[in-house]
């Protein structure tokens, strides 16, 4: 805890989960270079953020940075404060010291992840899949999984293997897994991309509702703003520019 409260800073950071300043990630492949530049980004607790853009614009990279999966090339300041009761963690310092396991622990404790294609383990039942994170965290058994399953309409599938479910149902299981260990943040990368638009809208609405009920911060990447707009998410402003020869792409994210 800070001994000397800076009224200004505390005010600004009060309720802020993510605080990023001048975080840059450079990537080069086959002579084409890509740069994601985040001059300033604050995400407050309980916020629902949408990162909208075509593929290749860097939204997945941004999510990877926020999930401590991708290492930024340059960090001025990257602070993470999942519990407002605790002082913020200096993610930049952990990357500098290559403390990958510490980052991993932080991720498994505070972040839920919903993957594009579900990412369910085919050999585990739906129940075990949803329980995976809880299991790793050694959380006590309670009715969390059943409640989530009921709310997502997949209760009758709990003892089946994912292979027997439809894509939409699998996506609901993935959402349940992302939420089951009561993380502070859920990151979802195109969670409904593989589902038909009608179902997608329904699933997304359900997802937002569940997250809101639990006061979970949500960061969603999607290429379709249309059906997300209605759910009241805050759209992260970003601007993508390409050099004339098309070899350099830079995306600047602010928010």
């Amino acid at each position, binding site marked *: 805890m800070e001994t000397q409260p800076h009224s200004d800073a505390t005010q600004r950071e009060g309720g802020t989960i993510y605080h990023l300043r001048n975080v840059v990630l450079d990537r080069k492949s086959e002579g084409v270079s890509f740069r994601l530049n985040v001059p300033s980004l604050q995400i407050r607790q309980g916020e629902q953020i949408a990162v909208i853009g075509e593929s290749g614009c860097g939204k*997945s990279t941004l999510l*990877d940075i926020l*999930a401590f*999966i*991708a290492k930024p090339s340059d960090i001025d300041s990257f602070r993470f404060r999942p519990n407002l009761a605790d002082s913020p963690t200096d993610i930049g310092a952990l990357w500098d010291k290559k403390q*990958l*396991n510490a980052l*991993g*622990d932080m*991720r*498994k*404790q505070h972040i839920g*992840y919903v*993957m*594009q*294609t579900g*990412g*369910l*383990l*085919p*050999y*585990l039942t739906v129940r075990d899949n949803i329980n*995976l*994170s809880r*299991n*790793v*965290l*050694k959380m006590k058994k309670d009715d969390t999984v059943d409640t989530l399953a009921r709310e997502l309409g997949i209760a009758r599938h709990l003892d089946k*293997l994912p292979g027997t479910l439809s894509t939409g149902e699998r996506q609901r299981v993935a959402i349940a897994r992302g939420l089951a260990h009561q993380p502070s943040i859920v990151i979802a*990368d195109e969670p409904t991309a*593989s589902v038909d638009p009608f179902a997608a809208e329904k699933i997304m609405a359900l997802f937002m509702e569940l997250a809101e009920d639990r006061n979970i911060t949500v960061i969603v990447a999607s290429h379709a703003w249309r059906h997300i707009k209605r759910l009241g998410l805050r759209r992260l402003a970003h601007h993508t520019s390409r050099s004339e020869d098309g070899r350099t792409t830079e995306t600047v994210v602010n928010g």
Partner: protein
Amino acid sequence: MKLFKTLRLATKDYLHEWQVSICFVLALAAVLGPMLVLFGLKFGIIGGMIDELIEDPTNREIRPVSSARFDDNWINQMRARKDVEFILPRTRSIAATVQLSSDKADRFVNVEMIPTASGDPLLQKTSAPETINQIVLSPTAARKLNIELGDQIQGSVTRRYLGEAERVELSLTVVGIADADAFTRDGAFVNLELMEAIENYRDGIAVTQFKWSGSEAPSERTYPSFRLFSRSIYDVAGLQKALNAVGVEVRTKSSDIELVMKMDRNLTMVYWAIAIIGLFGFSLSLGASLWANVDRKRKELSVLRLVGFRTGDIVWFPMTQAIYTAVLGWGLAIGLYQAVAITINTMMADQTEGQSVCVLLPEHFAAAGVVTVLAAIISAALSGARAARIAPSDGLREI
């Protein structure tokens, strides 16, 4: 705890993909099974040959080719050697005959006498003569004299002494009848003392024990020959060398023994060549399939990384599955081996007089198991290292 979770997940995955798992197990058993059969045959056949060599004590016998002079001192020195099981001096063979007769048969039988004592490898199944009046007959001699155990027979020895033909009679008790293998001609195993007495008598030397008259005995006795058995068949060559070195030419069955040992060595070499190639091939194929498996499961493994499994935990995923494959494949291979071994042994039973041709000991199975598991662990370690390098984001966005 995390390790246990990884084991559980790896187990579930292994069972879930049971078709693939069965293929791995079959592939392993297909390599290991024939290897076990091959080794079983090698071990059974060579083992049988060695057993035969060991069982027949004549294979351990070392006979001097020509006569020389050996005194008690020399014999005792030989007896003290570790590789010598049994040694007795022989008297001159020309003096070592006796004419036997029995009340039960109306004929005389001339037999060769062989000196013996307790521990004689040729008399393992019968008791050796303990006193000077006891005798063990070869089966042919016993048959000709119509003798049973415990019968009394008469021995007579003749000599020319001071120009006169003389004869002495001895009363002997038959305490045993030797195996047919021990001595094939008419023969009698007797106490060395008796042989010395008869040789003395023939040489015109007095034998006080039997009150046979003659001149006084020379101070020191020498023997022209000896009976020598090495402790094991593997000592024969060494003893032969040692005897040759002191100028004693001997005849042995060392060439037969050498032949079997050479065959053992050659077959062992051939076996190991095949075994190493087989093991190498198996390790490669298991390694390759585990390696490919890591690729196939990239996404699933990255999910595990994402929910918080650490690098060290992920390594155990392919490791566990490899060990399952090794153990199950090993078990199946043993089953295959048993079936083949029983078939071969039953088929060959007529020709081998019930001796098993295909034999493996429990420790062979254990060794095969250990080697298989080790090979599996080594090949799994490589793919495990690969699995551990999977980043959490690696498999996230494939479609």
